[in-house]
Structure formats: structure tokens, C-alpha cells
């Protein structure tokens, strides 16, 4: 074979190889596309600009049903409501409107469910650990995989509610060690000292569960009053804030008489620095226009975000985080805790 022929063959082979490569590139053969699930649109709940609660002033403005605030439907105008005290001289919040002891689906909203499941999963306290152990393995697994923004909350609800009702039907769940650190309501303490049989027992167990999960399980009781104002329970007295002779008024300690719509003044009578911040706009929610010549600015009241009887800001499920292109490692998701 001559050198010329060799060159010719080599050139032909190289040409063929390049043509094949160019063709393969054009047809995109051998290319692997990154397959990842499509990112769903975010739930419109997370775009909602409304406040955590609706204040009395909001309800008046919206022309909503105010019968919950009409004290004199039940109370007599001339006689102030009697204060019932338990053996420790704590005030008993009226227990009217209490239905059956068992929980129903209406008692537990989506946010509440997420809160309960979150605590059950992590069971940082003995009560949550006790509830967690009462679940079967398959139920535990289902709850472990629960994500609030995904469907399947019905299924989770079907696990949580029967589990709670099972516990209510059991003998008294109270043990000092288990409920250490749980702020027990005055009513619970009274019930603990009474006979623990039949409906009383179920009621006591429910109260205990409500005390252990005050944010999630507390139900419409005297307009869902759960007392938890302050760290030491010293402010859980109705007439610290309400006027005992006229139930439609509020009264700060300085003797002013305020309507429900002026409740922020009452809060400010104790929480001075926070009130100063709120007045200046550094605390609380504002919306509308920062430039007052262009439109109105709206400043929300204290009770738009805080429940005056239980002012701790409620927790909520977070909106979905960023969708990563690769698997998240544990180190990304949970940074090292400083001990």
C-alpha cells in the first residue's frame, strides 16, 4: 500500500467519524435530560394577606355577626357574673357550650393538624411521646411522611382523631412526670381532684390534652377562651382587663373605660415599650401606602395577630422551600446545632 493510499484511508475514516459525531449531536442522541418532577404552583393560602385573627373592629367594619360579643344574651345586665374559684383560689372560666368529650373533625383545622403532627413526630415532651407510642407502626410511618402542603391530610386526620379519642376513653392519663411543664387550666385542676369516673373522666382527659396542646386542640369554649396570658398564670383573671359591671367594656388599671374596638389602648397600658413601637410603626403589621399623599396606610391592632387570652404568636406550616436540582443532603437541611 502506498503512502498516498494510507493517507486517503485515514482521511476517509476521520471524515466518517466526524460526520457520525455531527449527526449524533444534531439528533441529540445519547444526551440524557435531567428528569425531575415539575414544580407545582404554590397554594394560594400562602399568598393570603389577611391577618392571623380578625379583631372586633374588623368585624364591625365588615358588618359581621357580633353575637359572640353580646354578653347580655346570657348574662343579666344588673347582676355581675359570679366568679367561681377553685380550691387554689384560681378563677374558673365558664364552661358553657361544651359539647361531647370526644374530638371531631371540625375541632381540628389544617393548621392545628400540622402542629399536632409536628409535635408528635418530634415528641420533645412526655405527653407527645406518650401519644406517639399509642400509635401503630404503620400509622407512625404515615405521619412521618405527612407534608402540610400536600394532599393526604384527610388520611392523617383519620389517624390523629381516633388516636386522641382512644386516649380520652382510657383511664386517667395524668401522671405528674408526664405533665411536668404543662400549664394546667384551673378547670383541669378542679376535675383532677374530683371523682374520675364515666363522663367526668373523659372530660378530664380531654382537658388534659387541651392543656398539653393549647394552640392546636383548644375548642370553642366561652368563645374559645384558653387562658395563657403571661408566663406565670398571674394574669389569667377575667377582670384584670374586662369591666365587671359592664361586660361590653374593657378597663385598664388607670380607670379608663374602653370599648372592644379600642383594645390596643388597653394592651398598651401594661406593654408600654411595645405600644410605643406600635405607635411608631416598628411593631405590628402595616399595609397600604407608605406615601400618605398617595393613599391611606392601615395599621393593624394588637388583637389582629395576638389572641388577648393567649397572646403567644401561633405557629403555622411553612410555605414550600426552594426545589433543589439535586438531592438534598442531611447537612444542607439541618445545619449543625450549636450545643
Amino acid at each position, binding site marked *: 500500500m502506498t503512502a498516498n493510499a494510507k493517507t*486517503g484511508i485515514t*482521511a*476517509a475514516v476521520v*471524515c466518517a467519524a*466526524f*460526520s457520525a*459525531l*455531527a*449527526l449524533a449531536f*444534531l439528533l441529540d442522541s445519547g444526551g440524557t435530560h435531567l428528569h425531575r418532577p*415539575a*414544580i407545582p*404552583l*404554590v397554594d394560594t393560602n*400562602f*399568598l*393570603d*394577606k389577611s391577618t392571623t385573627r380578625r379583631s372586633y373592629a374588623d368585624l364591625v367594619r365588615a358588618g359581621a355577626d357580633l353575637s359572640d360579643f353580646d354578653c347580655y344574651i346570657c348574662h343579666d345586665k344588673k347582676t355581675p357574673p359570679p366568679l367561681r374559684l377553685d380550691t387554689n383560689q384560681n378563677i374558673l372560666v365558664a364552661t358553657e357550650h361544651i359539647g361531647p368529650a370526644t374530638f371531631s373533625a371540625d375541632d381540628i383545622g389544617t*393548621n392545628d393538624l*400540622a402542629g399536632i*403532627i*409536628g409535635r408528635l*413526630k418530634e415528641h420533645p415532651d412526655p405527653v407527645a411521646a406518650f401519644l406517639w407510642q399509642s400509635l401503630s407502626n404503620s400509622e407512625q410511618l404515615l405521619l412521618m411522611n*405527612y*407534608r*402540610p402542603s400536600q394532599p393526604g391530610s384527610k388520611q392523617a386526620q383519620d389517624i390523629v382523631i381516633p388516636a386522641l379519642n382512644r386516649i380520652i376513653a382510657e383511664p386517667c392519663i395524668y401522671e405528674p412526670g408526664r405533665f411536668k411543664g404543662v400549664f394546667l387550666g384551673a378547670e383541669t385542676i378542679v376535675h383532677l381532684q374530683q371523682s374520675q369516673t364515666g363522663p367526668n373522666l373523659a372530660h378530664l382527659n380531654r382537658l388534659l390534652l387541651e392543656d398539653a396542646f393549647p394552640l392546636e386542640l383548644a375548642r370553642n369554649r366561652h368563645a374559645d377562651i384558653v387562658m395563657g396570658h403571661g408566663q406565670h398564670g398571674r394574669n389569667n383573671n377575667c377582670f384584670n382587663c374586662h369591666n365587671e359591671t359592664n361586660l361590653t367594656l374593657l378597663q385598664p388599671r388607670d380607670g379608663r373605660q374602653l370599648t372592644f374596638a379600642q383594645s390596643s389602648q388597653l394592651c398598651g397600658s401594661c406593654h408600654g415599650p411595645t405600644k410605643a*413601637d406600635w405607635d*411608631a*410603626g*416598628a*411593631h*405590628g*403589621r*402595616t*399595609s*397600604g*401606602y*407608605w*406615601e400618605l*399623599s*398617595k393613599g391611606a396606610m392601615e395599621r*393593624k391592632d394588637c388583637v389582629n*395577630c395576638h389572641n388577648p387570652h393567649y397572646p403567644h*404568636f401561633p*405557629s*403555622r*406550616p*411553612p*410555605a*414550600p*422551600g*426552594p426545589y*433543589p436540582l439535586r438531592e*438534598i443532603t442531611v447537612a444542607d*437541611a*439541618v*445545619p*449543625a*446545632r*450549636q450545643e
Partner: protein
Amino acid sequence: MGRRSFLRTSAVLTTGLAALAASLKPLLEMNDFPTMERFLQKYYKEMTPQDMAKVLKRIEDEVEQQYHLRPHVRDLKPMDGVEFVYCLNLTRCIGCRKCVHACVAENNQSRDPEIQYIRVLRLPDGSLDIDKAGHFYAPASVPEKGFFYMPVQCQQCENPPCVKVCPVHATWQEPDGITVIDYDWCIGCRYCEAACPYWARRFNFTKPSTLPKERLNLDMSYLGNRPRRQGVMEKCHFCIQRTRAGRYPSCLEVCPAGARKFGNIRDPNSEVSYILKSKRVFIQLKEEMGTAPRFFYYFDV
């Protein structure tokens, strides 16, 4: 020409042409050829009001063609005597990420691929070490015990490194303190992304997703939330279409905890003036970079 040399030449030619065609293949996927109008468009700062009116009409037409909805595109100018400042209360932030999604909805960002201007960092209590932060947290409810949350977005620096590196001046600082991007002038070199110490700039690597009609915000502005194209940079602009019209930004409106505060620092009676005067304001993030952010983090206690 001999038979052999003809064959050789034609083989080389075929290979060369095929290789050229293959290398030009990405052009086949390009479906957004600039119109002559867009191609000849002037630089933002050199446009006369008549030029701008034409450009705004062009953008409205383009959006209408794509979505069959007529947007209202404006070019709002900075107000006199206004300098925007953002304050964020770290004591109040609960890490719910509502601001992230309100921002995405307001500014017509691409959903898939995902482009978000705000990144909520979760840090363990007792430290401000960004190395310990994570942003993929997904607990059942927030806030979590032992952690606090720090949302980070464009800090609208007074001395912005991103502006200095732009080779075509497609990004600059406006008199009211907002660093803006002209999406029609950006060449997509991503120098600004590399220069930003706050990871605040986002690049459209692929064509941004088409939004469902009901999620499209029709109140648009030229430097703000008009739809972007593949290959341009974008970032937080303090909701320029809202704030220059006197309104609060969208992330502030949606915050359930009232942790976000916004206003005019040159007005001594504004909320932000009060906060900077009387609250415990933690340094601006990465203060040592000398960027002088207009975004301040503060505490209640």
C-alpha cells in the same frame, strides 16, 4: 480535478458543513428572535419620553400576544427627596416563607425553572454564622425551637459591587436607592451575579415558564416585573412598580408577623427612621464588604 481529490474535498466539505450545522443547532431552539424595534432600542437613560412610550407599547403588545391579557406597563421615575430603606425584625420573623411566594406572584417570576428573589435562611440560636445556615428546612410548623430565621434578598447597597462589574451598564443605582436592571440591555454575562456577596441576583438559564393567566400580575413596570427573557439577569427591586407609586412592597404586605418594615429614610417621621434611631439594629449583613446595604436587620430586645 481528479476523481480522488474530488472525493476527498467533498468529504472534507461535508464534514465541515455538518459540524457547522451541529454547532449552530442551539439556534434552532431559539424562538425569541428580537424584532427590529427591540434590536434598535436605545439605552434606557438616553430614551426620550416618546421613545419610552413606544417601548412600553411594544412590551404591552408582546405580553398581550402571549397571554391575551392587556397589561399596564409603566416607567415610574424616582420621587424627589426619597431614599428607600428596608428593616427586618429578626425577633419577629417566623420563617414561614410567605414573603418568598408573595414576591414571586407580584413580580411574575418564573415558577419552573424556579426563580425566587428572597431566600429565608434558618440559623441555630446564638450565632450569626452564615456557614451554619440552611434554606431547605421543611418542618410541619414554624418557628422551630432552637432556630431563628433570616430572609435575605437584594440589599440595595449604597456601594453596589454588581453595578461596578457590569460591562454594558445594564444595571445601575437610581436616585431613590434602588439598583435596577434594564432587561433589554443585559447581555447575560453574569458578572454581577459573581460580584454580589448576598447571592441576590438570579439568572434565567432557560426560558422562564409561562404563567397561568390568573397568576399574572398586570401592573407592570419597565425596570420591574415585566416578563423577562431567557439569558437575562433579574433581582429584587423593592417592588418598584408598587413603591414608586407610594405603596408598600408585596413581601411586607404578606408578612403575618409584621417583621418587615419599609419606608423613606429621608423622612424623619417614617417607620424606618424610628427603627434606625431607637431600636437595636444589628449590623448590615456582611458589613465588612463595604457595600453599605440599605437593608437593616434589627431586634426587639
